[in-house]
């Protein structure tokens, strides 16, 4: 966030804009009535006008870099501006007076500095003063009713527009910190340091700190950035003595400025509102404190060493606090999703290892025990040993394929995934003495590793079911993409899942379980001689919200 010179001079400086506007209007006013011959009667009052110009310039100089005086003098200056307006209405020629300049100034000041209520109140007072002035001069020969009505109409319309401005000005955000969220993705740095950096850039602060505690534990930790160096911080004491959205502080002059509920300024001492020892630990002398709340924590953002600090920073601070909370919540959410996905992957892999390797080894051990018993009885064991050897070699291939898929550091194209399924189908053909044919559509899609492992396992289980339960001799597999999902259709010529010999119908539980875990769906159509299993798996994480 970079600022041009003029932008930098007036950004977050409403007090400065008002003071400068007042001084320039006063100078222009003097110039305009000096050039206007119809205002000749006013010339004896030039001394008073010059005094007002001097007052306006002095105020601008006094409040230019002093947020405390700017806040302190805001209300008295406002009343003085209205008094000046009244004096000008009375002392100038009503027909040609440029008093409109001084009507606009207090109205705009109220709209910029406060809100619509103060703007409406200012407008009402100014219009009443104008009417009173008009009534007083109505008996003089120079009064023109038509001009008076037109000017009154101008005042009312202008007031209404500025009241509207005052209302909507409240909803204008000074800082759109949430825009920064988009740049957060993929960053590895500490989220606290990142959020603090965003706040420091937005407020043009050279130093800053952000700290959090939980309601139960009186310990606050966070980070501090001074001269670009990031360091950890920890304190046992809360920074603020009461809950406040934001405040400005000046430790050397023992000044603290915050706002009340209705938006009025509250002037206090640093000691009353802030634990100055904590500020001293941070090294902050003059700056801004704002409250930051996230879903689980609350704390403060402290910014200091700003080039330009003004009362506008009270509003800016509140916005920064909200944005910081939103950014941290968002970051926590993204991290939680990532951790949850990693945990899900770990659990899934653990389940696969348990369901395949551990169970296989247990089964192999049972078979070895059986062979030993047969051998002890003098029986023939060679065929059993051959079978065991075959199973071990098959399992070795399965484990190698499994590990190879895990080692891959990228997603597969659909064509590569289909090729791997074809290789698996050839192994399954030998294992189950069945014809197994895999066909892939020429769809374009990326298949995540997890999904590829699921696909392979589903094919193994589908083939095992078809042969074991249905006595199938031919299995056709079709793989493609439908919408955003992968579609695996397995068709066999077995007897299917229908009840046989009075037994309860078999169901593809293992398939169902795996499909459910992958948030997919399974459709089964079974009749003697033809069984169709259609499985749909989302290509992205299809976890329900």
């Amino acid at each position: 966030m970079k600022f041009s010179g003029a932008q930098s001079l007036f950004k977050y400086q409403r007090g400065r804009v008002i003071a400068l506007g007042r001084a320039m209007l006063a100078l222009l006013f003097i110039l305009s009535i000096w050039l206007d011959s119809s205002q000749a009667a006013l010339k004896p009052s030039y001394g008073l006008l010059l005094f007002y110009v001097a007052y306006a310039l002095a105020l601008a100089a006094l409040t230019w870099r002093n947020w405390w005086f700017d806040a302190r003098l805001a209300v008295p200056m406002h009343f003085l501006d209205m008094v000046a307006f009244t004096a000008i209405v009375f002392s100038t020629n009503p027909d040609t007076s440029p008093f409109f300049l001084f009507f606009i100034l207090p109205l705009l000041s109220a709209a910029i500095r406060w809100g619509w209520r103060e703007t409406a109140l200012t407008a009402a007072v100014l219009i009443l003063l104008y009417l009173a002035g008009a009534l007083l001069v109505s008996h003089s020969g120079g009064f023109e009713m038509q001009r008076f009505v037109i000017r009154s109409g101008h005042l009312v319309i202008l007031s209404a527009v500025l009241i509207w401005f005052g209302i909507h000005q409240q909803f204008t955000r000074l800082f759109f910190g949430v825009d920064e969220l988009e740049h957060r993705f993929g960053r590895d740095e500490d989220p606290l340091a990142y959020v603090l950096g965003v706040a420091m850039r937005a407020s043009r602060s050279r130093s800053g700190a952000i700290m959090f505690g939980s309601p139960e534990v009186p310990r606050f930790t966070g980070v501090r950035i001074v001269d670009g160096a990031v360091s950890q911080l920890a304190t046992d004491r809360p920074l603020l003595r009461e809950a406040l959205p934001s405040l400005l502080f000046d430790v050397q002059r023992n000044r603290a400025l915050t706002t009340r509920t209705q938006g009025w300024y509250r002037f206090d001492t640093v000691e009353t509102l802030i634990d100055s020892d904590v500020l001293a630990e941070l090294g902050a002398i003059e700056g801004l404190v704002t409250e930051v709340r996230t879903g689980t924590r609350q704390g403060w953002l402290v910014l200091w060493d700003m080039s330009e600090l003004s009362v506008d920073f009270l509003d800016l601070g509140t916005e920064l606090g909200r944005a910081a909370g939103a950014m941290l919540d968002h970051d926590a959410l993204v991290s939680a999703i990532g951790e949850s996905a990693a945990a899900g992957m770990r659990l899934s892999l653990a389940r696969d290892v348990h369901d395949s390797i551990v169970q296989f080894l247990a089964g192999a051990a049972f078979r070895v025990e059986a062979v030993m018993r047969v051998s002890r009885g003098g029986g023939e064991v060679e065929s059993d040993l051959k079978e065991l050897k075959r199973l071990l070699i098959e399992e070795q291939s399965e484990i190698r394929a499994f590990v190879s898929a895990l080692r891959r550091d990228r997603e597969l194209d659909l064509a590569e995934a289909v090729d791997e399924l074809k290789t698996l189908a050839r192994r399954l053909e030998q294992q189950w003495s069945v014809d197994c044919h895999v066909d892939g559509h020429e769809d374009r899609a990326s298949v995540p590793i997890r999904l590829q492992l699921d696909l392979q396992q589903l094919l193994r289980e589908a083939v095992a079911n078809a042969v074991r339960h249905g006595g199938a001799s031919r299995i056709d597999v079709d793989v493609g993409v439908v919408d955003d999902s992968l579609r695996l259709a397995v068709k066999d010529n077995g007897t299917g899942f229908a009840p046989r010999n009075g037994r309860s119908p078999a169901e593809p539980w293992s398939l169902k379980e795996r499909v459910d875990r992958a948030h997919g769906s399974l459709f089964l159509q079974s009749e003697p001689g033809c069984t169709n299993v259609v499985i749909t798996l989302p290509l992205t994480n299809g976890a329900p919200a």
Partner: protein
Amino acid sequence: MTRVLLADDHPMIAAALDVLLRGTDYELIGRARSGSETLAEVARLKPDLLLLDVNMPDGSGLEVLAELRKRTRAPAIVLLTAGMDDSQLLTADRLGPEGMVLKTSDPALLLECMDQVRKGERWADPEMAERTRHAKERAASAPSLTPRERELVELVRQGLRNRDIAAQLGVTEGTVKVYLHAIFDKLGVDNRTELAMRGPQLLG
């Protein structure tokens, strides 16, 4: 001959047991692959002995065990499992199967277990017996929270703030903090997030 029904969804185990029981006094009369299928097959085949895996789809082995314990005529049951966590071990211990064998133990133990169970005795794999004993000890030494503290843990798990918890329990926010500190100390957690996440595990 003792008629045996195997309830296990893993084909390798089924095939291996078929070979293992060949030439013994046990006859493998059927196989079920899910919890519901097991109950149906028990009713249909009326086996003398049920070899029951714990982790099965559509009704776990422990659910099948609990259901069969309600029946007057049920087979002797041997739990055959690749592993159980504390909670499953304690449930199994409470339901009291006639036998418990780990699939990863020496396969000879399975036959020894089946022989003992056939004689009407109970038999547990030494490793499982040891694990069960440890699980019981851990359960006994689990921190004892008062009903009020347990209620508070539940409210924290629901994501309520102290103010809302205080309103719900009819106490002050300060009292809630005191309760929370006591719970943190008892359970050895540092903050409410950890409490919310680990609460069920810590409370057992």
